[in-house]
């Protein structure tokens, strides 16, 4: 299992713990990651709002970087995955690919449509396999109730993301169970965290964050796990603001996917950057490490 | 119970009703009343297109001739000429109001070939022309801030001293009965497809306006002429547009033969609808069908063309027939689709009842005669919607607001109370299925005397049983159970007029085909059937067909 590792921006900036825990987990599972250091931001859909072809070309270049290594691309951010899956689909049209390749020809090479972007979550299920993952668990997270928070872009629009049912996804629950923990069911698991409008309409975003966190907590969650660092930012860094908006204390630790996996694989919490999360993760960590 | 007053009341907010409302002169107090929100009207389900002689090498006279021939010479030719002459302006005005028509290379409104037409004159908006027109029309209604009574159900016409003075309506959301006074009432309530068990029509198409007018003394014309659309889906009667044939789709039987060569060697799949429906039914009856259907084959059109011109019907075929027309032919069969007949009205939409106007599918003027051409129904709505509005403007000048008695309201309330009072009985749903099945079987594409006579008896019995329906919902708020019972009573009244007309008409013309009288008989039967209400059933009489310059000839495609 060798992948061109597309970090995206957050893992190398505001969420270094995501990068750390990804590397640690990859090593533990025998995955070889070749980091695409020359890869750019995926645009996050934001660049695409104004310049559709610019964002598409940037991602054709990113995919070409992986393709030049002869590898598929692995992402660790739900938003990057959503953007790249869509780019991959759009570039499967010959006319589009030709047009975009003309743009990137002198800027990173040509993309032939061979390299496919896959999120770590999908890699765990499809390539590693749940049975093998379960075998590798050293510290089963027994008794830990984990609320999955998928985030929008790894699920929708389902025309581009065909891994999970957008209304009844199962992949995070399957991984949670393989790690020995218990998934918590709540309607917010497929909802939006509000990150795209946290600058424009903070109050609305905080209502969204607060509602989802409280629902998970009221349903028994000890923590949430999310495959998207942008969701992580809103749910974790902004959690105190959400508490103010909802006028209720929350204090729910938010784990990146590889942090949860790494914990069950017996890795040291510091190797997983668990001390960096803004909402204290020690209540979770203390149970198992 | 309460009362409202408007100068003009328009019943029905589909294309015809809204067009009529938009034509009412400024300063006149007009209100539209509809049992569904305007954009839910069945006009929106029309797919294929709307006809007009827009091009310099076409002419309204050609369009009129095609329509007269299509009508199997039962259409009133002066009305047809008016419709075809006004068609180009009517459509261009809709375009001005924002309808998004598909465009040709010269940036003008694109047109495609359609059944029974000698020239490609069917304008279209992909395969959702009705939807495009309906939404643009409602946008104009919103723009003018027009009063629309949404989800008000017509229960009665208010007639006093031989003059229509308004209506009684049931406000479905609140359950209140309202007496609506008006100087003029325009009925634009659409067709009665739900008389039949399988129909392309929406479940709201229960012919309420026709039935209410009929009971109030307005005659219904040509009710036996029911159009069976050749390509409806087997499972639910949902429509697959004629445009699919206009774009080149072909019909094949179980042997893979393009059977239309036998029935209409020149026009083939684009012969007029009655010809195609009978061809299909014959193939099916003679054992060359596939599971009670024939096959509509569009594979040769290619994916791109289907996605561009016929995307909606592809979705329908995939969803409801489980077949993708890009890969596999779609099983289709004739289904009840359009009501050529309706409330008798003249070229200005005036009914014989003073103060009552009727336009659109609920009226019979008659522009379609014994068979309607595809693309002419959408046209009829906007041409006669406009003419009805204009006629109403002329009519109401100087007229006082009528003052009908309150008893209309209390009578209606009493009838509804009586209906609600039955503690048990027959459910409208079950009876509806029973009647619909009889109509499908006995008053369909092919008809014969004995079968019709039996259907006549059955329809009469069911109409009687429908007087004692069991309405389970006794509440006031949003009582659709009550509404469906009232609708079914309308359906039974109309069914009787359809069967009676079919039984009496001993010839074959257009959509009405008698296996025992397979030829058209102009000498005896080139005349309109008129049905008037009596408590014992419809009383039939006959009226002249108006001719201008088209002499009836043998009709072949």
């Amino acid at each position, binding site marked *: 299992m060798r992948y061109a590792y597309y970090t995206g*921006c957050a893992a190398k*900036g*505001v969420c*270094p*713990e995501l990068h750390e825990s990804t590397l640690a987990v990859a090593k533990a599972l025998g995955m070889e990651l070749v980091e695409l250091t*020359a*890869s750019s*931001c995926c645009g*996050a859909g934001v*660049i695409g*709002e*104004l310049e559709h072809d*610019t964002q598409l070309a*940037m991602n054709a270049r990113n995919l070409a970087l992986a393709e030049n290594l002869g590898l598929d691309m692995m992402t660790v951010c739900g938003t990057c995955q959503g953007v790249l899956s869509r780019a991959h689909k759009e570039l499967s049209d010959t006319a589009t690919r030709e047009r975009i390749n003309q743009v*990137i020809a002198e*800027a990173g090479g040509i993309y032939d449509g061979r390299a496919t972007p896959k999120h770590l979550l999908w890699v765990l299920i499809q390539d590693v396999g749940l049975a093998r993952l379960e075998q590798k668990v050293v510290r089963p997270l027994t008794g830990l109730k984990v609320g999955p928070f998928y985030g*929008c872009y790894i699920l*929708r*629009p389902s025309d581009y993301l065909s891994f999970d049912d957008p209304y009844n996804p199962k992949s995070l629950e399957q991984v949670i169970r393989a790690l020995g923990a218990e998934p918590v069911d709540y309607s917010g698991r497929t*909802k939006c965290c509000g990150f*795209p409008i946290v600058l*424009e*309409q903070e109050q609305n975003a905080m209502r*969204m964050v607060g*509602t989802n966190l409280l629902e998970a907590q009221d349903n028994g969650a000890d923590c949430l796990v999310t495959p998207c660092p942008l969701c992580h*930012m809103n749910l974790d*860094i902004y959690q105190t603001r959400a508490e103010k908006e909802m006028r209720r204390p929350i204090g729910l630790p938010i784990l990146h996917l590889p942090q949860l996996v790494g914990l069950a694989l017996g890795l040291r919490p510091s190797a997983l950057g668990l*001390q960096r999360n*803004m909402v204290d993760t020690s209540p979770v960590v203390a149970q198992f490490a | 119970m309460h009362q409202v007053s408007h100068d003009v009341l328009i019943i029905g907010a589909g294309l015809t009703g809204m067009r009529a409302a938009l034509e009412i002169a400024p300063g006149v107090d007009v209100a539209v009343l509809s049992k*569904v929100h305007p*954009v*839910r009207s069945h006009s929106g*389900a029309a797919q294929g297109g709307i006809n007009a002689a827009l091009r310099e090498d076409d002419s309204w006279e050609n369009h009129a001739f095609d329509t007269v021939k299509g009508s199997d010479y039962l259409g009133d030719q002066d009305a047809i000429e008016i419709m075809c002459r006004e068609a180009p*302006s009517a459509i*261009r*005005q809709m375009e001005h*109001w924002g309808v*998004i*028509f598909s465009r040709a290379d*010269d940036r*003008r409104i694109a047109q495609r070939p359609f059944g029974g037409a000698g020239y490609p004159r069917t304008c279209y908006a*992909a395969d*959702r022309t009705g*939807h*495009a027109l309906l*939404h643009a029309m409602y*946008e104009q209604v*919103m723009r003018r801030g027009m009063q629309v009574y949404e989800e008000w159900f017509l229960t009665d016409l208010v007639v006093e001293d031989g003059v229509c003075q308004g209506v009684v309506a049931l406000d479905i959301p609140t359950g209140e009965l309202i007496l609506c006074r008006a100087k003029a009432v325009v009925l634009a309530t659409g067709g009665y497809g739900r008389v039949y068990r399988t129909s392309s029509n929406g*479940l*709201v198409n229960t012919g309420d306006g026709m039935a209410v007018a009929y009971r109030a003394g307005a005659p219904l014309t040509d009710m036996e002429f029911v159009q069976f659309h050749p390509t409806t889906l087997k499972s639910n009667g*949902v429509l697959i547009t004629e445009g699919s044939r206009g774009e080149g789709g072909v019909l094949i039987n179980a042997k893979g033969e393009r059977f239309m060569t036998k029935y209409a060697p020149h026009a083939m799949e684009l012969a007029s609808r009655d010809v195609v429906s009978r061809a299909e039914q014959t193939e099916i009856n003679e054992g060359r069908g596939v599971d009670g259907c024939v096959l509509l084959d569009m594979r040769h059109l290619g994916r791109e063309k289907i996605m561009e011109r016929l995307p*909606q019907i592809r979705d329908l075929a995939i969803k409801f027939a489980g077949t993708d027309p890009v890969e596999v032919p779609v099983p289709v069969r004739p289904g009840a689709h359009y009501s050529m007949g309706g409330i008798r009205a003249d070229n200005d939409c005036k009914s014989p009842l003073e103060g009552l106007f009727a336009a659109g599918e609920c009226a019979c003027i008659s522009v379609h005669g014994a068979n309607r051409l595809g693309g002419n129904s959408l046209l009829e709505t906007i041409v006669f919607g406009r003419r009805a509005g204009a006629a109403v403007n002329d009519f109401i000048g100087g007229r006082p607001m009528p003052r009908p008695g309150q008893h209309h309201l209390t009578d209606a309330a009493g009838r509804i109370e009586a209906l609600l009072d039955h503690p048990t009985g027959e459910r409208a*749903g079950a009876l509806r299925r029973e009647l619909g099945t009889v109509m499908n079987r006995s008053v369909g594409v092919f008809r014969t005397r004995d079968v019709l006579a039996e259907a006549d008896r059955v329809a009469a019995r069911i109409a009687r049983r429908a007087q004692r329906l069991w309405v*389970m919902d006794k*509440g*006031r*708020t*949003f009582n*659709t*159970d009550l509404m469906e019972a009232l609708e079914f009573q309308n359906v039974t009244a109309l069914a009787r007029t359809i069967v009676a007309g079919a039984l009496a008409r001993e010839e074959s013309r257009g959509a009405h085909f008698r296996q025992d009288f397979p030829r058209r008989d102009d000498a005896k039967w080139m005349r309109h059937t008129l049905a008037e209400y009596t408590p014992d059933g419809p009383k039939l009489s006959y009226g002249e067909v108006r001719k201008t310059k088209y002499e009836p000839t043998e009709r072949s495609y």
Partner: protein
Amino acid sequence: MRVEIEIERGCPAEGVETHRERFRVEVPRHVTVLDTLIQIKDDLDGTLTFRRSCRSAICGSCAMRINGRSGLACDTLVESELRRFGHLLIQPLAQMPVTKDLAVQMAPFWRRVRAVKPWVTKDGEEPSWPVERESLMEQHHVEEMDDASRCIMCMACFSACEVATVDERFLGPAALAKAYRFVADPRDSERTERLTALNGSGGYWDCTRCNQCVEACPKDVKPMEAIVNLRRDAIRAGLTDTIGSRHITEFISIVRQEGRLNEGRMPMKMKPNPLELLKVAPLALRMLRKGKLPLPYHPPIPRVREVRRIIDRKKGST
């Protein structure tokens, strides 16, 4: 097949509180949710109330929540719902008060649609009769409006909208997609006015781009994409004095410079007011201590020139 269906019912006006009822029915295999509701109403319980008409996904009457998903009952197959979710739960659309059972009050929806002035506005007078010619239009304009004009106003997207759930002011996906239909119509003379009117609170910048509307829409209107198009057109029309538009342009400028988005720089660029920055100082400090605050200036990625070349290139029609 035998099916158990749970339906949320109630009638506030008659004092019947929201509750759920189960029905067991025998239905054919290829049956839709609507067919099943009709069967229940006809044969089991006539009081069950819902709107419906065309049965072919064009009238928009039968929108409701099916297993939590807003969509049309007439084009949802019972069998596939059971396969996906293991059960069948029917509820009325969200965001709108219930009149009875599955019939909701449509007023909140139509109020928002009206707010975008959904009609073609033209300079000049109505054409006189007879109307001699239509306006000319290129087919590509028709295609540009194709998605938005396909809307049947069923309200499923509005029911699914996450921002509408938390913010009463938001006009919602259907109204904004409809607005785009007119912005993209070459016949409409009020393009700039429309973009300006919807530039503020409740307008197209309030969308959180969650794709719930795109996923819910039964006609593939993709309302969110129409909203994004409005944003694009607004910026190009010079309406750049909003946090939203600055967000996009600053995002591009940071990525152009560093190749990646430096999240540490974004808030500073978005909230140039020093008092605002002071408010976030404690949070920023905590993040700094945990190593989560990127430096305000970060060296660019290797080969950043390639990225700049893409961003800077002379654009054609896109």
